[in-house]
């Protein structure tokens, strides 16, 4: 699979370097330099200068797609939807074999309510390269998905959860945690993001209808988590992932993506983001909404629990604390900084995509299967040693939270807060790392 076919336009880590290169590119005879300069202005919001550069690009290089594509993106950004459609259509005519032009064109058709034309635009060109054929199939399934589940109806679904009286703010979440600890009641807080959403199954019909789309997303997520997608064909892992939705039925509080996240994903027509976020709400509507014991909150509640001081209060208490993360020094930092009574620490391998940022856990095996099953076994045997467990272990960490709850203790899925406590910036939300970092043991 050629991942470049699915490049997400939201993130552009090369932009600063590109800006440096393109300074003074006006008048350049290099179309790429000109396009990049225009993109820089567009991203800065200086639309008139960007338009001027893109029109210059089209005039000088009318047989290249770049000017048509980028001016189309600019028009769309400015709300000139019909202009954008015409420009993308022209880009397709300039180079009928350019998949990105087709993708822009199809997306624009869909935005304007022409779903069938959108599908036709992406499916029918004579794609000969297998990677592009596959990409076209996946994109056409995304179009089907958006036709079946338009942004407005998904927003309505999100609001159903956010307006439910069981939807809690961080303060109320903290109060529930405190109560569970005081009453020695089993409890788990599990947060869901697009990775988890990619693995949530709504029903068999849905799985069959969007099989290619879901497979592409699940493989991509596996590469993020484990460095390869080999597990996609592992029956034991598939079965485990299939049980994930069952875990949510027993979870005390489920952290959900906020509504703006859904809008962002639809706005950029994200292949991974749209179905993964939408399916969280679709699956939960069926699986957990009827269970009045389940509560909900935003999935960045872990950050708020830290920033509003709730985690500190819990850690400074007399509870026996257990921690699960890839940071060998996390337990010690909590003891030193908060005087936490850390009685158990389990170290798990880091997500492969974050290995450079997080450092080395000293564990060479991938998190699944051996460390995972050993950790589950250990928790079943001795999770009761700690009253409160802080879990930062990605998708598999949700299963740890469930095992801890099953053993009668309290489990909090604290995610990237653990990275922050250890001074590692693994997310944009941790960019102000000083608000998180605790002292180092040595």
């Amino acid at each position, binding site marked *: 699979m050629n991942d470049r076919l699915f490049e997400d336009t939201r993130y552009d880590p090369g932009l600063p370097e590109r800006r440096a290169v393109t300074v003074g590119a006006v008048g350049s005879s290099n179309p790429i330099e000109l396009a990049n300069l225009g993109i820089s202005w567009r991203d800065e919001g200086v639309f008139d200068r960007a338009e001027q550069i893109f029109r210059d690009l089209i005039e000088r290089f009318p047989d290249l797609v770049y000017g048509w594509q980028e001016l189309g993106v600019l028009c769309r950004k400015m709300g000139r939807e019909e202009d954008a459609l015409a420009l993308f259509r022209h880009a397709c005519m300039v180079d009928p074999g350019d998949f990105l032009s087709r993708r822009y064109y199809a997306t624009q058709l869909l935005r304007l309510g022409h779903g069938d034309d959108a599908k036709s635009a992406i499916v029918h060109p004579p794609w000969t390269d297998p990677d592009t054929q596959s990409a076209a199939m996946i994109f056409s399934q995304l179009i089907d998905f958006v036709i079946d589940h338009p942004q407005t109806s998904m927003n309505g679904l999100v609001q159903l959860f956010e307006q439910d009286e069981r939807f809690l703010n961080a303060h109320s979440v903290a109060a529930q945690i405190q109560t569970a600890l005081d009453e020695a009641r089993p409890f788990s807080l599990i947060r869901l993001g697009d990775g988890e959403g990619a693995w949530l199954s709504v029903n068999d019909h849905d799985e069959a209808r969007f099989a290619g789309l879901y497979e592409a997303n699940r493989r991509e997520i596996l590469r993020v988590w484990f460095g390869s997608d080999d597990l996609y064909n592992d029956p034991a892992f598939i079965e485990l992932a299939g049980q994930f939705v069952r875990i949510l039925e027993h979870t005390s509080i489920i952290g959900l993506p906020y509504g703006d996240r859904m809008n962002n994903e639809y706005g950029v027509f994200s292949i991974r983001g749209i179905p993964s976020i939408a399916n969280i709400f679709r699956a939960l509507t069926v699986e957990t909404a009827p269970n009045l014991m389940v509560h909900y909150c935003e999935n960045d509640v872990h950050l708020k629990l830290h920033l509003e001081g709730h985690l500190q209060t819990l850690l400074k208490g007399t509870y026996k604390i257990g921690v699960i993360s890839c940071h*060998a*020094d996390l337990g*010690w930092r909590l*003891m030193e900084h908060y005087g936490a009574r850390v*009685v158990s*620490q389990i170290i798990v391998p880091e997500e492969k995509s974050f290995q450079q940022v997080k450092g080395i856990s*000293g564990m060479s095996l991938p998190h699944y299967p051996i460390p995972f099953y050993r950790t589950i076994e*250990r928790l079943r045997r001795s999770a009761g040693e700690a009253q409160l467990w802080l879990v930062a272990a990605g998708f598999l960490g949700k299963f740890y939270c469930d095992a801890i709850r099953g053993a009668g203790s309290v489990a909090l899925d604290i995610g990237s807060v653990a990275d922050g406590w250890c001074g590692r910036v693994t997310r944009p939300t941790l960019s102000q790392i000083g608000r998180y970092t605790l002292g180092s043991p*040595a």
Partner: protein
Amino acid sequence: MNSSPDKGQALLDALAGNGPIMTPVALVVAHQDDEAIAAAGTLVRFRALTLIHLTDGATSPSAPFSQPGFSNRDEYAQTRARELDRALQACLAVPQRQICYQLPDQTVGEAIGTLTKRLAADLLAVDAVITHPYEGGHMDHDAAARAVALACALLARATGRAPARLEFAGYHRIGNDVRTGEFWPDPACPAVKITLSPSARRRREAAFECFTSQRDNLRYFSTLGESFRIAPDYDFTQAPPTRS
């Protein structure tokens, strides 16, 4: 003091048996080859092993380097690391975690302050730790015993619990003789001597053979058995035992 004698005894009992050892255990050793001396025949049975080497096995960059066959300390350290990798494979050991603190050889005692805290952080994740005895064999071995004891004491004070502290038989001197594979006697801490099965013996022999740079030392160690005991509560303000 050794705050978890029950857990320690449970691990000794498990070591005396034949089955897998599921308890999370750390083996803290000073040098690459000490883990083989400790338990090359038995390591395969540890299913949740954290293997910690305190040094990289080569003397400090500021110290004169004179290791025959090697041009500098880094080359020597890299050789020892490669030998360790091969030895772990040879004895079928698969540590769950493997860490090297990268101290220079013969400097463990100098780093005892920071070392104690770092060890405490790593030992939070285990139920038992096995390390060198305090026996006057090698200065780093004695410092390792002390650092582990201090780290466990620190954990006991901070959390109310600490891993059980065990030790493996290394070597010590009696006069001009070097005594290997035996502890200084301590009636309060009887040793469990494991007679290795033929296959375990082969694993130990295979691991020893991988340490070509340490061949002159390892030839003094038997491959017939491995000995462990609950670590005594040493008085580290006193010199290690000596016998003339």
